[in-house]
């Protein structure tokens, strides 16, 4: 029997489909722009991104949402290929969260 990937949810039982419109947040717009640019500059394909998302645990995937998955998948790729240092990124994130300010970049 084959194992389903965490993202392979087609046909699974599920509840109500949310119908409320959700406004894209400012950082989410910027994230899309950043990944658009990085895809070309670093020659990273959608399939590579998907592979990174598919490596999430079922629990992580289950509680994730679209932009969170995009961010986490891309971070995984950038850590793997050495573009971004994971420890430095974690430290920077902690610093931003501690300050509570968006005015860092």
């Amino acid at each position, binding site marked *: 029997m084959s194992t389903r990937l965490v993202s392979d949810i087609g046909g699974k039982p599920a509840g109500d*489909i949310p119908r409320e419109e959700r406004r894209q947040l400012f950082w989410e717009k910027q994230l899309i722009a950043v990944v658009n640019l990085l895809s070309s500059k670093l020659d990273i394909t959608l399939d590579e991104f998907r592979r990174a*998302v598919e490596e999430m645990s079922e629990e992580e995937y289950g509680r994730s949402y679209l932009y969170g998955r995009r961010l986490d998948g891309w971070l995984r790729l950038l850590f793997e290929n050495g573009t971004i240092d994971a420890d430095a990124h974690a430290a920077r994130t902690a610093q931003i969260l501690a300050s509570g300010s968006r005015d860092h970049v």
Partner: protein
Amino acid sequence: MTADHSHSHDHTHPHPVNEDDDMDLTEHEAKFLALKAMLIEQGILDAAEIQARVEVNELKTPHQAARMVARAWVDPAYKARMMADAKQAALELDIPVTEAALVALENTPDLHNVIVCTLCSCYPRSLLGEPPAFYVSKAYRSRTVREPRRVLREFGLTLPEETEIRVHDSNADLRYVVLPQRPDGTEGLSESDLAALVPRDALIGCAFAKTPS
């Protein structure tokens, strides 16, 4: 949270207005801000090109595809070209589609097409912009391939039993757009008036085109 510019580090890049300054900073946003800062500091991206790309992305709206639908409704030759090569047909209307391939699916009284991406959120973003929340929801992705008639009924589309429903699962290399049926009573309307009758969800197969009021 502060939106002022009182921090001391030196830089010259522009700070775009953040329309979400009244919202709490989340861990995801902080992770993104850290990533963005590092990419800029490492010279991989600069703030101006990020903002420029945001602005390009904001030009991508469902109205682009609605214009294609309206043209197809009034021009059979254009419709034939759209069904043969939707990317090229988009370009005829100065709409650059950057996805690898785009296929147009025509809805008729006998056949209703609906689009999903079961594996992630593949969507013709360069044509329609960002997908709606329902499209990327796990419930839509899960259920549409198993019980499309019921899902469509929940969207207010009650289709005759004899109408075949085809569900198209998008992927990294192939995206879809639906050509909805032209509503009755629209003879003589201009293309721009016709385009206004095509809501976003009709381009996914989750709504009908509107009838003129």
